């Protein structure tokens, strides 16, 4: 899972990415989109449906999200080549599959924030911790 060079970024690139977000992530995302475009229509439709779900509940950006999309493209390219029926990929309950898949990557910001808030609220209620901790960077 090599993700480009390890050279330090130029100062210019650092500032630029503050504004635009990571260019490397953008490139990887465009590459993923191009791979999906090549799939037979029914597989493409299925991936796009899954992508919508992941956008809502999964990691929205960052290297973790890009690794997720690349793994997704790997699965569907292989399945299309093997002619695996869509139902066989997703099983009877597609939600179960998408949740199991998503659990491999960093959790989305919204979920992370609420989980932290919930965990620290219980700590406070249990009288264990008085410091507020609602940050998402866990």
């Amino acid at each position, binding site marked *: 899972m090599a993700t480009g060079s390890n050279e330090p970024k130029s100062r210019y690139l650092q500032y630029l990415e503050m504004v635009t977000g990571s260019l490397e992530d953008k490139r990887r995302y465009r590459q993923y989109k191009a791979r999906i475009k090549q799939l037979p229509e029914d597989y493409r439709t299925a991936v796009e449906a899954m992508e919508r779900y992941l956008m809502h509940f999964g990691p929205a950006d960052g290297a973790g999200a890009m690794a997720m999309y690349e793994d997704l493209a790997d*699965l569907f390219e*292989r399945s299309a*080549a*093997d002619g695996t029926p869509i139902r066989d990929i997703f099983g009877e309950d597609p939600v*179960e599959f998408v949740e199991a898949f998503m659990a491999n990557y960093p959790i989305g910001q919204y979920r992370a924030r609420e989980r932290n808030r919930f965990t620290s609220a219980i700590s406070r209620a249990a009288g264990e911790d008085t410091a507020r901790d609602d940050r998402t960077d866990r």
Partner: protein
Amino acid sequence: MGKQLTEMLKGTLEGLVLAILSGRPAYGYEITAWLRDQGFSDIAEGTVYALLVRVERRGLVDVEKVPSEKGPPRKVYSLNAQGRAYLEEFWTTWSFLAERLERLREGGK
């Protein structure tokens, strides 16, 4: 496959797949086919794939990309030393669980 089996499989599929890989390296499609053959007929290819991604990320398997006549290269998974240690632990846990359940069943008669 019944709902109950599906539920029980959730906690054990990882051990099951690692046990398959302890015999010989395999790719995702082969593993799913084997599981279906063994009576886990409703298992989703995607679920097995998600699991393989997980064990790969946790460093329990080594992955080799093997060219295929059609489509992208196949990822062939093999159990490494860390995976073997993990599988040992799985069997210990499994024995504990099976033994306790069996004791309950006998006591319930």
